[in-house]
């Protein structure tokens, strides 16, 4: 069976080469038959990868421990859903999974554009197949997933316990979807550069892909944070670990692109900048994969150190040379005659928001690779940890939050004083009132006061937008309030969906700012002893043991009391995963909208009966997840079918055609 998988991967590689060659050759010789053949081959690559994936999944599910990958990442007692998750739990499988999704996206793109964008498509196919070929090459020659052992182990060594968590089964796929879909706008950008069709057709065609990529990057990061929070047991959700940084960097640049692209659509400006952001986002996704897999930087997420680093670096260099080369070649055609009108305009807000987002990406990048840089330059390895990232990205984030409030309500081109007064009075009053209130209440953490005030400022601005639009419809079209609101959003989902996303982002900021008030306590107690943390009294009543084939666990029982009244019972655990011979900590979290009570059983000393607990009170953490849900909702609204957008795309295509004909004549 596994031979079939290996064969499929080899065949896929050959077909990918064929697709690249025929697509490009077809353009050169203007023979559509070649191009069509290349497209068919690209679909066939996908078919082969599907076969290989089924083979690996089959091997995992039938527990074929003779296959090295199956023996390394699963065991006979591993539950079914984690056995499926083991597909992407190890290096080799995750590369195959990556290729699978990439081929799936490629097929969607080819199908969507089977009759459209015919000039661009050969280059798109060639680019996407080149990326596929890189991963297929790794799978065929460097990390073959179907390698067999010389013997048949009676048992596999199991999936890493840290990965045996439901968030972990969906967090990597979400992130992969985000990473991989970034290659579609990239492929179209390269195609636009290669063909010289630099109008906004490629941008409008890939808008949804860019949004999809951004959506899954957001989701992947949120789920990753959630996983860290529940599984790693250190009380937080984000540690600026190199791999977390790898996941957030493309998010920064993708967010920047989603904003700056509006300026290109409106004013035909920033073409080079947008092109750069699309390329940069894709490059950062590959760089992120490189960071995770090369072992150049130590991280909790690292896969086994493998020899993959050089291949990724070579591929990165190749991408950069091709993209920058094409960009420089077309630079004269990307100039714009338009200029910005005024600093008090939405363009300016977007421009500065872009600079800050790219600044965030750069600072994160710099801090991540600083150990390598300092070793090169000075011969000493200097690392920077979470304090660095918090110190740099914190203030930049606050500036960004401010612009989040300004951007949506300031006028395009040039804001007049009267429009500024009209738009900004309510938000400013709300923000300042909130700030003063917090100050009067005795909050002296100025960082937090500023963030909370800005959050009020942004939210008030957005709510005012919604209410103004709704009221206008009520008055002019005599609609009922819910009807007016629904139609307002439905008529312009991109704008109002964007506002909803902003609400989500503000709530995430709000939740993150709660970390400024975290309380932590470590304590060792004996049975029936109680201790105080914040407003809670925790009473430890004992340990029970639990033992099955897979896990042995010590489960503590802790009663939670407030003002002498018991409100809950919590059960943090210490687990021992037998196959992997590894102890892990299973935290218990009691979430509320105000604060999470986060309880860790640090250790349990059997002879003395002493248990050590680590307790965190994490204010406002729930708002991060709520904000995440609202962000998802907002993105769904933006993605809703949009007649205006379709019209704009048709118009862009038509005008591009007319221009093309004019040139031809």
């Amino acid at each position: 069976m596994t031979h079939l998988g290996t064969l499929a991967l080899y065949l896929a590689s050959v077909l990918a080469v064929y697709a690249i060659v025929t697509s490009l050759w077809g353009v050169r010789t203007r023979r559509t038959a070649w191009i069509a053949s290349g497209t068919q081959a690209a679909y066939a690559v996908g078919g082969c990868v599907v076969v290989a994936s089924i083979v690996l999944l089959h091997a995992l599910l039938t527990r074929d421990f003779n296959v090295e990958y199956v023996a390394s990442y699963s065991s006979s007692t591993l539950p079914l859903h984690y056995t499926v998750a083991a597909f992407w739990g190890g290096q080799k499988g995750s590369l195959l999974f990556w290729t699978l999704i990439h081929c799936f996206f490629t097929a969607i793109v080819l199908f969507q554009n089977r009759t459209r964008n015919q000039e661009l498509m050969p280059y798109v196919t060639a680019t996407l197949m080149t990326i596929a070929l890189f991963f297929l090459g790794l799978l065929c020659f460097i990390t073959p997933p179907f390698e067999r052992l010389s013997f048949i182990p009676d048992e596999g060594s199991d999936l890493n316990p840290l990965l045996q968590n439901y968030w972990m089964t969906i967090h990597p796929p979400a992130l992969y979807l985000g990473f991989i879909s970034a290659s579609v706008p990239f492929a179209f950008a390269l195609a636009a550069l290669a063909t010289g069709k630099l109008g906004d057709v490629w941008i409008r065609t890939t808008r949804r892909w860019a949004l999809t990529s951004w959506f899954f990057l957001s989701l992947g990061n949120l789920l990753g944070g959630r996983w860290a929070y529940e599984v790693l047991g250190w009380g937080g959700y984000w540690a600026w670990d190199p791999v977390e940084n790898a996941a957030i960097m493309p998010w920064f640049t993708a967010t920047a692109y989603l904003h700056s692209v509006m300026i290109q659509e409106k004013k035909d400006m920033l073409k080079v900048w947008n092109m750069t952001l699309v390329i940069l986002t894709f490059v950062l996704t590959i760089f992120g994969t490189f960071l995770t897999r090369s072992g150049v930087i130590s991280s909790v997420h690292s896969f086994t150190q493998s020899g993959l680093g050089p291949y990724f670096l070579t591929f990165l260099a190749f991408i950069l040379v091709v993209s920058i080369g094409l960009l420089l070649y077309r630079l004269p055609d990307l100039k714009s005659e338009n200029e910005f009108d005024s600093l008090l305009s939405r363009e300016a807000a977007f421009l500065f928001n872009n600079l800050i987002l790219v600044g965030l990406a750069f600072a994160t990048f710099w801090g991540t690779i600083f150990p390598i840089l300092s070793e090169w330059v000075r011969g000493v390895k200097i690392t920077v940890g979470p304090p660095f990232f918090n110190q740099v990205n914190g203030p930049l984030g606050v500036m960004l939050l401010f612009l989040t409030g300004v951007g949506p309500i300031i006028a395009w081109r040039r804001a007049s004083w009267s429009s500024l007064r009209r738009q900004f009075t309510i938000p400013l009053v709300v923000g300042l009132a909130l700030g003063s209130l917090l100050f009067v209440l005795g909050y002296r953490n100025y960082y937090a006061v500023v963030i909370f005030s800005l959050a009020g400022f942004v939210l008030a601005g957005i709510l005012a937008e919604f209410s103004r639009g709704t009221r206008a419809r009520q008055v002019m079209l005599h609609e009922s309030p819910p009807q007016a609101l629904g139609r307002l959003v439905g008529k312009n989902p991109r704008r109002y969906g964007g506002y909803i996303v902003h609400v989500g982002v503000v709530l995430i900021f709000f939740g993150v700012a709660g970390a400024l008030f975290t309380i932590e306590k470590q304590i060792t107690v004996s049975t029936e002893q109680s201790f105080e943390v914040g407003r809670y009294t925790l009473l430890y009543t004992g340990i029970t043991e639990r033992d099955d084939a897979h896990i042995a666990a010590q489960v503590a029982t802790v009663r939670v009391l407030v003002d002498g009244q018991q409100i809950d019972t919590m059960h943090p655990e210490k687990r021992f995963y037998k196959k992997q011979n590894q102890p892990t900590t299973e935290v218990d979290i009691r979430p509320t909208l105000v604060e999470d009570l986060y309880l860790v059983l640090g250790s349990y000393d059997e002879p003395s009966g002493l248990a050590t607990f680590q307790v965190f009170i994490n204010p406002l953490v729930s708002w991060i997840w709520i904000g995440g849900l609202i962000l998802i909702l907002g993105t769904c609204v933006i993605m809703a079918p949009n007649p205006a957008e379709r019209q704009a795309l048709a118009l862009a295509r038509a005008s591009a055609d007319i221009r093309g004909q004019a040139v031809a004549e």
Partner: protein
Amino acid sequence: MAAKQSKFLIGALLIVGAVGYLIYTSIQETKVYYFTIDEFLLNQETLANTDVRVAGRVQDGSIQWDPAALTLTFRLMPIEPGTIPVGALPPGVAVSYQGILPDMFAEGRDVIVEGLYTPDQQLVASTIMTSCPSKYEPEIEKRLQAS
């Protein structure tokens, strides 16, 4: 026209400058030197009162752990014995730590200790990371190597 565009340039430069300034000062304030234990031992005279991150191995029999007070002391040793001539350097460094033990912490494990190196030659750890290189390396491979 030019004046208008230069306003944008100034705004952009201000932001770029702010990013650069934040990065520069924050690195100065938060930098931590990363050493292998061998490098650390060779340079330890110059390192008093600095924040360091040292990778080494927990010496067998050196762990003293008081679960009630949550205090831990142990010695951090070179990972490969023999890279430094015996007697040429003090044998490892004493580490003290207060807090919960990381899950994977044990004798003979490879760890990364981050903390302040005090003038009395103690490494006062703020974090201990158990970065056993074989952590994600499946058991099978070890068995293969053994056979």
